[in-house]
């Protein structure tokens, strides 16, 4: 009955704080849905008058309701039902068609009564809808900074990589005085680039936490979002889940990764390529340092992982053959 919809409207009523001039009118309509059977009529009449001015604007532009196949698909909240749905739909149909009027509880008498009968589903549905509404309200109530949202701003991953690489190159060389294996002129050049123009201050943690992961035996790699993890254990767990529980749809080789990747007890070992192109065993360095220097990951068979520095000898960096 009420519970679902009251929750719905309660959540929505929080929104006016963000968009004051619009919410009350629009959500006035939706609040109507919240009324129970008995209250609906009175609720409708009072609030509908408030709603009408806005809705009239809408109705001019509303195109005709496509009549044929949608009849079967109700507009109502309860869609699993059979016969009841059809009857309700027709009412809903005409209300859409008339003027795009925001639906009220009057349009869904059967829905509301169905809800009353099932105590279980409705309470369950409450949480479901609440989650939906909550996710919406969460988005609108807490001003989400662009850097915290996945895939926003919509910049292609390829371009992001380029930005990050340019930023890393500029930042990285400021600290790397010791390692002199590259050409000196190139280093000096990179230093000069820091003076030319403003540095692109791409947030290191901001967005680009996706690194490629390949596992021996499967040609197609996956990607893991390092920003979603705050420790080696968490990342290793995610990798184990990714490759353990999904028999890769193209490759049918079963993988047995019985135990963790980090402690060396599995037949696989986790390695990474750092920004200098060296392949290292994962776990050597503090997590944050790892995140800022990792370029990609490889899950290698233990038998092939010769020549990589064991976890204990954290200060030695040995070159190993790239893939």
């Amino acid at each position: 009955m009420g519970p679902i919809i009251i929750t719905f409207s309660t959540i929505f009523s929080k929104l006016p704080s963000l968009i004051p001039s619009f919410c009350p009118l629009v959500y006035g309509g939706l609040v109507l849905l919240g009324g129970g059977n008995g209250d609906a009529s009175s609720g409708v009449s009072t609030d509908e008058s408030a709603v009408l001015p806005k809705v009239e604007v809408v109705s001019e532009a509303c195109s005709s309701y496509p009549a044929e196949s949608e009849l079967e698909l109700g507009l109502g909240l309860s869609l699993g039902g059979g016969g009841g749905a059809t009857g309700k739909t027709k009412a809903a149909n005409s209300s859409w068609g008339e003027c795009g009027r925001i639906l009220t509880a009057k349009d869904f008498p059967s829905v509301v009564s169905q809800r009353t009968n099932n105590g279980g589903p409705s309470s369950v549905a409450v949480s479901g809808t609440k989650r939906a509404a909550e996710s919406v309200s969460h988005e609108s109530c807490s001003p989400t900074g662009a850097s915290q949202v996945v895939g926003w701003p919509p910049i292609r991953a390829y371009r992001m990589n380029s930005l990050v690489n340019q930023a890393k190159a500029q930042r990285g060389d400021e600290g790397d005085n010791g390692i002199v294996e590259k050409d000196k002129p190139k280093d000096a050049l990179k230093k000069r680039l820091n003076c030319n123009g403003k540095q692109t201050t791409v947030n290191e943690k901001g967005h680009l936490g996706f690194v490629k992961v390949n596992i021996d035996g499967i040609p197609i790699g996956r990607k893991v979002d390092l920003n979603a993890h705050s420790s080696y254990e968490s990342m290793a767990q995610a990798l184990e889940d990714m490759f353990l529980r999904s028999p890769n749809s193209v490759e049918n080789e079963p993988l047995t990764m019985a135990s963790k990747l980090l402690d060396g007890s599995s037949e696989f070992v986790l390695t990474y390529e750092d920004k200098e192109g060296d392949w290292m065993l994962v776990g050597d360095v503090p997590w944050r340092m790892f995140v800022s220097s990792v370029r990609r990951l490889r899950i290698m068979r233990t038998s092939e992982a010769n020549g990589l520095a064991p976890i204990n000898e954290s200060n030695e960096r040995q070159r190993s053959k790239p893939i």
Partner: protein
Amino acid sequence: MHKKTAFSFPDEVLEHVFSFIQSDKDRNSVSMVCKSWYEIERWCRRKVFVGNCYAVSPRMVIKRFPEIRSIELKGKPHFADFNLVPDGWGGYVFPWIVEMAGAVPWLEEIKLKRMVVTDESLELIAKSFKNFKALVLSSCEGFSTDGLAAIAASCKNLKELDLRDCDVDDLSGHLLSHFPDTYTSLVSLNISCLGSDEVSFSTLERLVCRCTNLRTLRLNRAVPLDKIANILRRAPQLVDFGTGTYAADLRPDSYSDLAGAFSSCKELRSLSGFWDVVPDYLPAIYPVCSKLTSLNLSYATIQSPELIKLVSHCPNLQRLLVLDYIEDSGLEVLASSCKNLQELRVFPSDPFGVEPNVSLTEQGLVAVSSGCPKLQSVLYFCRRMSNEALVTVAKNCPNFTRFRLCIIEPRTADYQTLEPLDVGFGAIVQYCKDLQRLSLSGLLTDRVFEYIGTYAKKLEMLSVAFAGDSDLGLHHVLSGCESLRKLEIRDCPFGDKALLANAAKLETMRSLWMSSCAVSFRACKLLGQKMPRLNVEVIDERGPPDSRPESCPVDKLYIYRTVAGSRFDMPPFVWTMEDDPSLQLS
């Protein structure tokens, strides 16, 4: 076969007439005139475009068009570009290659976008198609330089190898050495996305030397500036050139060498690359600027003064891609210098910075709209916007076909009035009657969708994020936009009602993407049951949707029309809603 009356042409004549009809739309229309035209047309169609690789099976395509020479396939939904489609979702090209290898041995051209291509696929291409001419991979992944090497080594008639923004596993720098010494047919080579630090320059130079038909050459970042001059001198016929790193220690002789090399390229019309630009070297390209029609500086971290100087030298520019370092002042100069500008893309240099790092606002866009009457296509990232500016832009540019505005902070209101930007975008759709593509941003209510549904009758693709108030918004779009083919939505409060009410519309579209919205699992199931010609895919990495209440919203939803039924290559986090309600979810 058919009785030939005095009023019908022989098949050969019709075929000859059809050969002048190239566009897919027209070809499709031709094929629907009558059965005999359908038959004749299908035997002589040479190019097929499949906008969604799961909409049809390779076998069906080949059965209908047995004589194709060129195929273009698109795989993942557009939002995959922004990491919204989980890795492993699909879009594998291998099954297509396998089918075509057997049935269409004369295939010449394969173009793929957002697909997973493996080395095995590339090797099969190299082995199967004796007259293979062109491979264009756009935003693809899953392969390495080994696969490309197979193509280079085997395809004697290869004219085009174009890797645009691909994620390539770069195993060695020796891709180019796999082209045989006898190979000379290269016309277009784009390896700009290859990451390898080693490129054999002598191999590159020899390749360029012997391929006298080379028109397009886009190098990767590994190629340093001091090597460019030699390459350009060996290929003065180049039309489209992409530099590698545009940085070197400043030496007078290397600068003049470079400038001389550029001036020898009389045909050069398009430049790109420009990673790590050292501004002092930029004037080296001035000799070619007056004829340039396309300039991609979107990786060039140079500041406004240099950009202004550069842009002022390019009066014939039609296409400009640039970072927001250009600032409003630079765009004003652009507006006064480049009267032929048709396309402008301005990318953010610091997308995650909280404070603006450059002075690029709505003013720049207004200036360009005012000064460039031929402007048709815009992609603009900025941090503030006003309805007034948008209305001005709309009135200035009624010829817009593509308008994509990204205000970096979600739900940003009109900075002057603090109102939503409904009216501004409304003006865009109202004045730009030929608008085909639109991306929205900023604070938007259901009203903007009302405008879109009312006016955007030619709109084919709409991208929506963090907008709208209720299902009414979605209903306006689905019921009003007659030409809509692709709709992608994220983080909007759209739920079941509008979707279900407009279910039939979905069959007239290529696809619908909805993520972080409020569509319940129940609605997805219902759609799947009732609409057998749609694949309704629920993508949810949290686990099976039936482990949660039916009214729970799904994480991501991808609906597309198909004649191929459910696909068989889904990963564990994708569920297709079945036609038969008694079937269990797989």
